[in-house]
């Protein structure tokens, strides 16, 4: 048995090693790629003009390829800027036009610019960007010129780059898409084989490893990975890097993404993107480590059914249904994701997408709002926030399965509790302000809300909360601060659920009279960092906003002291 377990570990490590090597062993060349699909005619011809050397070359690293590509895109922008920006001469002539009256107007502007295509663009752009100056009188020519220069700068930044160049959103997409199209080599030709040798072997190995019982698995504080040893730090570092690449530099990981192409073709009928690969790996992790969880608590039906529940919701609701919806030409929709965890639910792109899909889209919109306004409070009232956090949620699902070996690493100090309350409620407030701003902009078309640019606000939220906090820290810190860092300190939905759980719910953890022996298993294994023992040894019920109701405190209690219950609200305290 032990040998088989070691074999499992070896298979996993081999698969994992191959997976990692696939990050590096591909070749990259843009020669075969039809860039005209992604670029305007002029951009494309500029690209061909600029990339003569580049397109001949074969790169052996996604980093150097994508970085070179990035330079080329910047060069295209420079060319376009040169072509479509106001020249100093044009600025001077504009200044002269108003020098006498010192009053700004739009008459005569056409004559400043020539009749060429760039000239027409400039004239239109100047009218658009300079409209706010119309009718204004200046005290001297100097002031007038400064204003015209400001308009010229805005045209460069927003007019030329957005309309003629490649803005940063498009650039991010383009970098990824072109790199993916340019990725080739043996590994791509033998895509399915590679999938099996990397992800397939990892699954088989991990599966063998987890199904063979081992007493050592319980000895979490003797294991380097689950006790912040070097293996734990290494794992954390790996996860952090993985998330940074996934969220901020997906162009570097095309060697991985192509692995998921066959699966993606099968499920949604198109090629995989980085988040398809991520969803696939995420689901596999929950399934394999979910099986580990099922075997860890063979006689505990609460843990069994709860684990099956998160495995189901991840596989069906988070992974398969949204992709199948895409295949059916319907909006991508995760029916169990709830705002404000699902922070872009009210973004204009999302709303437009739903509103353009008739009754199904409207149903989805209504369903999402129903969950926020009624589903959450009613279910939390009856069952506590656990119905979501440890039974349905995807973040919770990963935490309860892949994250289970790290649950003991959560900080139990009072200090951590204080920090938790401040940070999580701050994120909740921020998410609400951000969303109100975004909806306000959607409704009124006005991009300023309370003096804040809502586009900048939503972008900052997505970057810092949606990606950095929830992903990089949320999962990357599993081996460092436990498996619920995001859920405990960051998730705005958990904060919302928690407020209801704390003040209006039937849920509580009951303690059993005088049976507690203060051993501390409950506190040690509380992933939310609740000092359960503090309450249990006093015979007090545990009513805490953060409790996700995973039930592990009750499972590890050697004296039968703790029980999760939904009973009459009056008997809670």
């Amino acid at each position, binding site marked *: 048995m032990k040998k088989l377990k070691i074999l499992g570990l070896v298979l996993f490590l081999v698969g994992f090693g191959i997976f990692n090597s696939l990050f590096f062993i591909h070749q990259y060349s843009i020669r075969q790629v039809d860039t005209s699909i992604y670029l305007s005619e002029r951009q494309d011809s500029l690209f061909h003009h600029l990339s003569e050397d580049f397109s001949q070359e074969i790169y052996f690293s996604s980093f150097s390829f994508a970085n070179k590509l990035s330079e080329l895109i910047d060069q295209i922008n420079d060319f376009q800027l040169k072509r479509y920006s106001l020249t100093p001469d044009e600025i001077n002539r504009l200044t002269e036009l108003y020098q006498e009256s010192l009053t700004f107007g739009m008459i005569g502007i056409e004559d400043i610019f020539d009749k060429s295509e760039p000239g027409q663009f400039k004239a239109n752009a100047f009218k658009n960007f300079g409209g706010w100056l119309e009718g204004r009188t200046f005290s001297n020519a100097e002031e007038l010129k400064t204003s015209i220069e400001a308009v010229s700068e805005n045209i460069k930044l927003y007019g030329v780059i957005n309309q003629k160049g490649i803005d940063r959103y498009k650039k991010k997409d383009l970098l990824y898409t072109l790199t993916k199209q340019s990725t080739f080599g043996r590994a791509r030709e033998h895509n399915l084989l590679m999938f099996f040798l990397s992800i397939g072997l990892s699954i088989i190995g991990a599966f063998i490893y987890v199904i063979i019982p081992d*007493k050592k698995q319980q*000895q*979490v504080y003797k294991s380097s990975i689950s006790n912040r040893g070097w293996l734990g730090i290494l794992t954390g570092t790996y996860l952090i890097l993985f998330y940074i690449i996934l969220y901020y530099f997906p162009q570097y990981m095309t060697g991985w993404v192509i692995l998921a192409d066959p699966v993606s073709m099968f499920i949604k009928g198109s090629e995989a993107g980085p988040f398809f690969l991520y969803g696939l790996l995420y689901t596999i992790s929950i399934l394999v480590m979910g099986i580990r969880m099922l075997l860890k608590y063979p006689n*505990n039906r609460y843990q069994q059914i709860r684990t099956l529940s998160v495995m189901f919701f991840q596989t069906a609701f988070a992974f398969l249904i949204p992709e199948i919806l895409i295949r059916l030409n319907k909006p991508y929709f995760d029916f169990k994701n709830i705002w404000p965890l699902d922070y872009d639910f009210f973004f204009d792109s999302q709303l437009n997408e739903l509103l353009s899909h008739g009754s199904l889209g409207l149903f989805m919109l209504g369903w999402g709002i129903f969950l926020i306004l009624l589903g959450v409070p009613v279910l939390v009232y009856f069952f506590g926030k656990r119905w979501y956090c440890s039974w349905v949620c995807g973040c919770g699902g990963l935490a309860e399965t892949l994250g289970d070996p790290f649950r003991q690493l959560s900080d139990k100090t009072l200090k951590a509790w204080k920090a938790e309350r401040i940070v999580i409620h701050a994120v909740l407030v921020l998410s609400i302000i951000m969303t109100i701003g975004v909806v306000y902009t959607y409704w009124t078309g006005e991009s300023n809300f309370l003096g804040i640019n809502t586009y900048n606000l939503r972008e900052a939220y997505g970057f810092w909360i949606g990606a950095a906090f929830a992903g990089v820290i949320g999962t990357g810190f599993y081996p460092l601060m436990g498996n619920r860092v995001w859920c405990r300190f960051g998730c705005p939905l958990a904060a919302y659920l928690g407020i209801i759980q704390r003040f209006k719910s039937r849920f509580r953890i009951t303690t059993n009279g*005088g*049976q507690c022996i*203060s051993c*501390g298993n409950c506190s040690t294994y509380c992933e939310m960092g609740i000092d359960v023992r503090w309450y249990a040894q006093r015979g007090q019920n545990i009513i805490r906003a953060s409790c996700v109701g995973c*039930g592990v405190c009750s499972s590890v209690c*050697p004296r039968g002291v703790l029980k999760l219950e939904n009973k009459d609200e009056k008997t809670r305290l």
Partner: protein
Amino acid sequence: MAKRIVILGNGISGITAARNIRKRSDDPITVISSESRHFFSRTALMYIYMGHMKYEHTKPYEDGFWKKNKIDLVYNHVQKIDTKINSLEFSDGGSMEYDILILALGSKTNSFNWPGEHLRGVQGLYSLQDLELLEKNTKDITKAVIIGGGLIGVELAEMLWSRDIGVTLLAREKYFWDNVLPHQEAKFIGQHILEQGIDLRLNTQLKEIKDDGTGSVKSIITQTGEEIECQLVGLTAGVHPNIDLIKNTDIRTNRGILVDNYLRTNIENIYAIGDCAEIQNPLPHRKSIEPVWYTGRQMGEAVANTICNIPTPYDPGVWFNSAKFFEIEYQTYGNVPNQLPPEMEEFYWENKKDEKCIHLVFEKETHTFLGINVFGIRLRHEIFDKWLVEKSSITDVIDNLEASNFDPELFRRYEKDIRAAFYAQFPELTLEVK
């Protein structure tokens, strides 16, 4: 006038006393221990060894708690008490005066003067130091023998089992722990222990421990002359009050430090609580010495009140306890004698497949419910306490078992099976007027 209160021992009793005195008074409080700097949970020692926890997790309060609550902790060893001048003498030569002294000295491992019991590799399991010694003694060993089939014996067996050390468990009883458990449960739990791969030897006593020639354990010899090779001998045949310090004082002792119902010793300003205390007139169904966690806590609470001028007799109420034998949890409420007296009737139910059993005892004449042992099912303390205090009838208990269940949600329930089996055995009780 502020009284200087000194508590000897930082276990559950001493610490509970300190905390509860602090709630009611501003008197200076000092807690002295030579075992650990801070209060830790002795019951969790096994989990440290098994790698489930670290020492720091066994501390129920953060280290800053004591300063915040103005409870002075002294990490030192008291070697003498002078009750005439109210003074303690430390082994490093220092001394400390007290106005009130609370003795919470805990227990010591029992031994029976077995030949070889002082060899290297022979030890009990009670203190933090015992745990450190066990780490040393079990480094790279393959075989251990445990002497004494009680709760600590099973815990030690599980600890060693978790490290793949072969365990032979010697118990002199006919069935496992049958000096406490009725034979049905004793057999049931003995079987479970065997199934874990523990070599449980019942009806077996230790004769001597053999030296390997270097002062370490080589093997043990049983009373029947059988030799069992081992590198560790765990002595777990119970504990007794740790009263060596008291022996040369005028504080009265018997097996433990004798106290009245207010936990007062014969010396006016000295109290004794926890494992080391021996109650002179225990309540019915309670023993004079009860080395369990919650009695220590209750004594600490009672003595704190008394010292703060709210004289409170120690009243532990109805007996209850709990333990865990490998995978199976055990709870008991009330009185379930290991030998059924003629005036009592019993009902035993077992589900072999799921490893659950329950044993109820009641009065033959009045059908008053007297006590319950349960394995593998969690029961609600409050409800059983109420049933026992109110002297409910056995049928009330059987009919309302659902209300007493404390198992986690979604667990399989057995009340119906139990009830059906009960009325099949006692059909005459079906019609009892309630």
